[in-house]
């Protein structure tokens, strides 16, 4: 019975931390106004807004409310009208960003694994491409985002390509290292048993490398999202970064 109690304790701590952080965010600046010498000048609502205002704006941007205090009805069609009125509403913007992230992730992982296996298995190819890979990997990939947007336009393709270029090297290096660190004994044993190169790759190399590939999936999805967001920041027709950057563009108050 120790585990559920331990879990409940952990959850209680996590909820308490959330409440404390949100409370400081919500009322910290007001406290500073009252006691300037006691409370430091942090969390100016002009820059970081307040949780209550953010939640209110979230309801409006997601068409759940049309204006403060008025909820949009599902049955009378107000919600559908609001969604139709704003092409880049929060739901559609999030769905588009997620779609681009998914494709960037899938293409990045698949091409990274393929390239990693190919170069990890071949000493010759590895020697030839090593300096080029090191050189390309040294480029901060995010710096390529403007060029990618210029080349592929401001549509979804440029976001997928930006995401792909960020993910592919991460997965490639993990797969490459995985393919390089396989115990030669297994490969020699498979060769002795008469396995062809393809059979060795399929039955020895790929299963041994998979743990390395799986380990790279977690950072890869975060990097894929970062790639899409940066691509959307540079230039996008739609997506969540368009909503992120639209308030300063239109001269609106930055927060919320």
């Amino acid at each position, binding site marked *: 019975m120790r585990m559920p109690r331990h879990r409940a304790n952990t959850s209680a701590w996590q909820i308490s931390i959330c409440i404390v952080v949100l409370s400081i965010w919500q009322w910290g600046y007001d406290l500073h106004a009252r006691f300037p010498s006691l409370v430091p000048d942090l969390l100016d609502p002009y820059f*970081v807004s307040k949780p209550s205002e*953010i939640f209110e704006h979230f309801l409006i941007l997601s068409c759940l409310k049309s204006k403060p205090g008025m909820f949009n009805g599902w049955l009378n069609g107000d919600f559908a009208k609001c969604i139709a009125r704003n092409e880049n509403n929060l739901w559609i913007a999030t769905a588009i960003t997620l779609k681009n992230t998914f494709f960037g992730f899938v293409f990045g992982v698949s091409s990274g694994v393929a390239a990693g296996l190919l170069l990890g298995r071949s000493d010759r190819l590895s020697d030839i491409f090593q300096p080029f890979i090191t050189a390309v990997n040294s480029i901060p990939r995010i710096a390529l985002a403007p060029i990618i947007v210029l080349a592929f336009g401001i549509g979804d393709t440029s976001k997928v390509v930006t995401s792909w270029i960020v993910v592919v090297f991460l997965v490639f290096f993990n797969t490459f290292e995985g393919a390089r660190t396989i115990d030669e004994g297994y490969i020699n044993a498979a060769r002795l048993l008469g396995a062809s190169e393809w059979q060795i790759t399929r039955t020895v190399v790929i*299963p041994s490398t998979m743990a390395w590939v799986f380990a790279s999936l*977690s950072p890869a999805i975060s990097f894929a*999202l970062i790639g899409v967001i940066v691509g959307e920041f540079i230039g996008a027709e739609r997506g*969540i970064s368009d*909503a992120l950057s639209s308030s300063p563009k239109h001269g609106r108050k930055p927060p*919320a």
Partner: protein
Amino acid sequence: MMVAVIVLMLVGVALSAMIRRLQAYLLRWQQHNMAE
């Protein structure tokens, strides 16, 4: 703007959770296949 930041944070958390489950599933699947 902060709405989008918060939504992105939630999206990131959801994606990470999904990938962690996928990783766990793939590792189980790999162990099962290697055992055979």
